Structure formats: C-alpha cells, structure tokens
C-alpha cells in the first residue's frame, strides 16, 4: 500500500513537471497558453505571477522535480529523511498553490486552468504523503 502511494506520488509529480514545463515555456517565450478560457493569458501577463521576479511555474518545476527525485530515491533507500523531505516540499507546495489560487481569485481575478490542475495535483500529493507518514508512524 505504502509503495503504491509512493508510486502514485511519483507519477503525479511527473504530471506536475509536464504542466510546469508547458506553462513555463509560455512564460519565457511570452506565447499564449492553450486554456479553456482566457484566464491563463490574464494570469500569465500579471505581475503577481512573478514572485521575486521568478515565474510561478518555475517554482512548480523545481518542487515537482524534487518530489520525483525523492520518491525515486525511496525505492532505493528507506532513509526516513527522504519522507520528511517529501513532506516538507509538499507542505510548501500546498501553501504555495493556496497562496497563488487566492491571488488568482481575489487579486488577478482570473483563473488559469493549468494552475488549477497543478494546485489539485499538489493537494493530492500532500494527502498521499500524509497517509504514508501516518502508516510509517503507526508501524514504528
């Protein structure tokens, strides 16, 4: 069960990487993003999509890459620190996507479909990590 959760996090992280790469290339090339409405374009052109001057999808790409790496390493090593690393990244991820969704809804007043997909993805990952953590604690 625990390993299938880890596998699921790995796959979801790869999906997160795909989404982040697609959106990031649009940010960098300043090209339009295929979206269900024009929300992605409004969000892409907003200054709030560049916290500290860094495009939002870059944060996603780094976070998801680390999650991919750490979940892979967990298939090799059973070092508990890997789980805490994953937990830490997913906590940061959930806070980050919550903050950005709040900005989209109330400040930018537009929702980018891909950001919503990524936000849901990050919440599922967080939920799965918590589940794994609970199982490991119980085992202990």
């Amino acid at each position: 069960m625990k390993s299938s959760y880890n596998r699921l996090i790995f796959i979801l992280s790869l999906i997160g990487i795909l989404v982040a790469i697609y959106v990031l290339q649009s940010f960098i090339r300043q090209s339009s993003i295929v979206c269900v409405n024009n929300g992605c374009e409004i969000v892409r052109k907003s200054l709030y999509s560049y916290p500290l001057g860094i495009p939002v999808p870059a944060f996603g790409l780094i976070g998801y890459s680390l999650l991919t790496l750490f979940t892979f390493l967990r298939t090799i090593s059973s070092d508990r620190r890997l789980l805490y690393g994953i937990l830490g990244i997913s906590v940061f991820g959930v806070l980050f996507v919550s903050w950005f969704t709040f900005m989209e809804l109330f400040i930018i007043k537009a929702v980018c479909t891909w950001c919503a997909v990524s936000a849901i993805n990050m919440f599922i990952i967080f939920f799965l990590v918590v589940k794994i953590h609970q199982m490991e604690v119980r085992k202990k």
Partner: protein
Amino acid sequence: MKLSSESKLFIAIAVITVFIIGIGIMLMSRPAPVLERSQLLPAGSYTQGNKEAKTYLVEFSDFQCPACRSFQPQVKALVEKNKDKLVFAYRHFPLAQHPLALPAALAAEAAGEQEKFWEMHDYIFENQESLSEEILLSAPEKLGLDKEKYLKAFKDKKYQDKIDKDTSDGRKFGVDATPTFFLNGKKLDLFTSSDLSKSVEETIKNNPK
C-alpha cells in the same frame, strides 16, 4: 548496485515522460506560420489607414472585452500617426461569455452598411461599461444613421455570416483570446500593452511605405 523492480519501474516511467517532453518540445519549437495578407484582410473587412501600405495590422476583437477596449486608444493613435504607412483591420471574435459581444458586432456591421463602422466601433467601446441593447438601439440618433435601415440590418442579423466567418477564421489562425493582433501575417504575443506600438513602429521602420 542492484535496482529493485520498483526502481526499474520508476526509471521506465521517467524515460517515457522524458520522451513525451521531447516530442512536445519538437512540436512546439516549430515556427509559427506566417499568414497570407488575403487571409487576414479578406474583401469586406473594415480598415483604417492606407490600404496599400506594406504594414498591416489585424485585430480579432470582442466589443465587450475590457482588454480590447484598453488597447483601442493605442491602436487609434498608431493609425493616426501612421496613416500612410499602416493599414489596420478590425475583425470580429465575440466570445461566448460576453452576451452583448455578438449584438454589438451585428450593430457595428449594420452601421458599417451606412459607412459608419468606425464611428459605431468607437461609440460601443466608449459605452462598454454600461453597454446594453438600448445603447445599441439608440446609435442612429447619436451617429446620424438612417434608423429604419440600421434597425432592419441589426434585427435581421444581416451580417451574422460575416461575423461567423471572422470568428471561424480567427479559430483557424489560432486566436484563443481577445484581443489578438496579427502584424504582417504573424501573431503577436504582447507582454505589455506598449509592446504593440513597439512592434508596429519597428515593422513600419523596416517596411517604409
């Protein structure tokens, strides 16, 4: 080090993902096609400026879209400043989420029948925030149109086909948001609103007259 079957599975999934990314990069790095002038400026399009100018700017726009309105003064200034060197065309792309975008487009075409397309275009954008059917119906008084003729064209949706053609052309050309501008056949990706003026001025400089 001997890898477990789980590790091997992860590696296989990662390899497939990298493969997908590679295909994606290949597909997306193809240059955007340059459209023909006749495709973007079909006969019957309303234009401003010099029809013979080498530089042509085409906007796919929605009368109820706030971003389109915010670009309007800039476009107007560009056309005024470059009357001889630029031709600008307005093409319809009314979005479904704007209930008055299509009626406004029909009204603009109905006014266009009486040579007052651009006056109507400006009138609609000026009244965008309070846009209503009444505002569209009261255009004849404001703009000096033949009321009967205007109302007939407007209510009979005489120019619906033309608007539909603009919209389907827009979709074919990759328009997915409004406003979308094409400059000499190339879709512009505008990061800030001043990018439009910069791109147009630069193109005019490279294509004098």
